[in-house]
């Protein structure tokens, strides 16, 4: 029952063409240590399913993404994700662009083993025009209302970053907002979790267990990745690294910008990565964002 793996071992289990869901939201609690390991790999033709942040841009810049299923890509204080924009504007990215709520519904449907869930979100917009595979369904009851049948977003793999985990696959998300990571875990055939801290076996009180949001039987592997969400926000452990995000953003408008970013922050070990960003102690002091 020891599910601990390294990020490298997780990525070795991924295959070209897989549909991979990435937890978090924008620049919030993204499993960046595992994402960086994907950037270092030869993986390709991925379908990425995410409430997109910098991980989407990085994977696009590295040519890993064949298709993106998303509602947005943003870095919040830097509203536009530069490499996502580049890929989108180059016309090289296949997209399935949906409302944030449709996205949630797709994950829920997958987790419940339903083919779809009905919603009003997306009707009367160009979301249905640009996605002709989306169908409507009429209520079988007296109201006869026509609703959108949001198809299940079944994932081969979900990647999630949490605050605490044990080696059995139990997790705690103590951030102010747990976001929709529980639904990613449920929607996937395999779920790999990176964690700020990993212990052998949790011994929790009844207050702490409220931060356990999905069951360990959903968790395939646990990676110990201190500061593993950097440069994104992982409250209450650390805030986002705005200086790093700005540097990353600026690289997109520089010649060989992505290659230089890779050289500095990807083509190295995770230990070296943290050192280049001031070390774990400095990252741990990054202030919480003010919304």
């Amino acid at each position: 029952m020891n599910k601990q793996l390294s990020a490298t071992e997780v990525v070795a289990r991924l295959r070209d063409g897989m549909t991979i869901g990435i937890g978090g939201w924008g620049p919030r609690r993204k499993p960046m240590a595992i994402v960086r390991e994907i950037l270092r790999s030869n993986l390709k033709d991925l379908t990425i399913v995410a409430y997109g942040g910098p991980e989407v841009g990085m994977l696009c810049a590295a040519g890993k993404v064949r298709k993106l299923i998303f509602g947005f890509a943003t870095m919040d204080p830097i509203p536009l994700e530069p490499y996502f924009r580049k890929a989108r504007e180059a016309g090289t990215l296949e997209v399935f662009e949906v409302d944030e709520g449709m996205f949630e519904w797709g994950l829920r449907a997958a987790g419940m083993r339903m083919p779809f869930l009905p919603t009003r979100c997306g009707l009367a917009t160009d979301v249905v025009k640009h996605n002709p595979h989306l169908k409507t369904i009429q209520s079988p009851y007296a109201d006869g209302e026509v609703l959108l049948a949001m198809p299940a977003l079944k994932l081969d793999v979900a990647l999630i970053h949490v605050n605490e985990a044990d080696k059995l696959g139990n997790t705690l998300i103590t951030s102010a907002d747990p976001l929709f990571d529980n639904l990613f875990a449920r929607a996937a055939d395999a779920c790999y979790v990176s964690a700020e801290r990993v212990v052998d076996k949790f011994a929790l009180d009844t207050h702490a267990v409220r931060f356990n949001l999905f069951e360990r039987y959903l968790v395939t592997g646990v990676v110990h990745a201190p500061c593993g969400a950097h440069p994104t926000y992982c409250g209450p452990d650390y805030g986002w690294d705005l200086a790093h995000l700005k540097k990353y953003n600026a690289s997109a408008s520089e010649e060989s910008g992505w290659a230089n970013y890779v050289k500095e922050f990807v083509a190295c070990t995770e230990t070296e990565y943290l050192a280049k960003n001031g070390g774990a102690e400095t990252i741990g002091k990054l202030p919480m964002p003010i919304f």
Partner: protein
Amino acid sequence: MSQHVEFTLAELMIVAASEAWRGNGEILASGIGVIPRIGASLAKLTHSPELLMTDSEAFLVSEPIPLGPRGDYVPKYEGYMGFDRVFECVWGGLRHAMIGPTQIDRWGQSNLSVVGGDYKKPKVAMLGVRGLPGNSINHINSFFVPNHNSRALVAGEVDMVSGVGFKKERWEKGVRRDLMDIRRIITNLCVLDFEGPDRACRVRSLHPGVGFEEVQDNTGFPLLKADNLGETTHPTAEQMAVIAKMDPHNLRGAQLKGNPPGIRPAA
């Protein structure tokens, strides 16, 4: 005797924005962006204390939180409102959001996704549709336009209809249209609404020194004049004090190019 109050255009727009939430009842007020957020805060602190607001992250607060660094201010939490709960709120319809889309058309349809070119290869990619489809079909929405021109208020339909509007042809038979409404557009020139015949767009009030023709010239579609079309209501001293308290770092002063005064100097 009302005392003379000096105000900027941003402050005038904040007061106009706050009016959008008047009489909405006990719902969640979401002002996205500096001016809409101060507008929602002003509404809650003056005419509509029943409004619910969040800290813009995950908590409901009984008192709107001032913008920017908070010093020793401690938020007054009254409940929890993570994104999951926000979606539940959206689908239940008990919310009025004010956002700033990139494009808006004569039907109130909005766009935050892509502009120009082909959808598969757009000229400009922005955020994506975000929550606009779901927000717009489920609850009240208003809009904020910092630079009123025909690129923002477009001639035809918006390039990618992200948020629904009043265009009949867009609504398939059997789809419920009665859950949505679009109330106001607060721009740097005027306040617009959709209270004309068949929900046509009207100029509801003009900001001081702005004429109807100027607004029309800068709008991609024909506008109607509201009955008794007059000037946008000026901020009072009380409102100005609340605005200053909610925005102690004067972020509002950086929202409009040149931070112009509320009353245009004579040309």
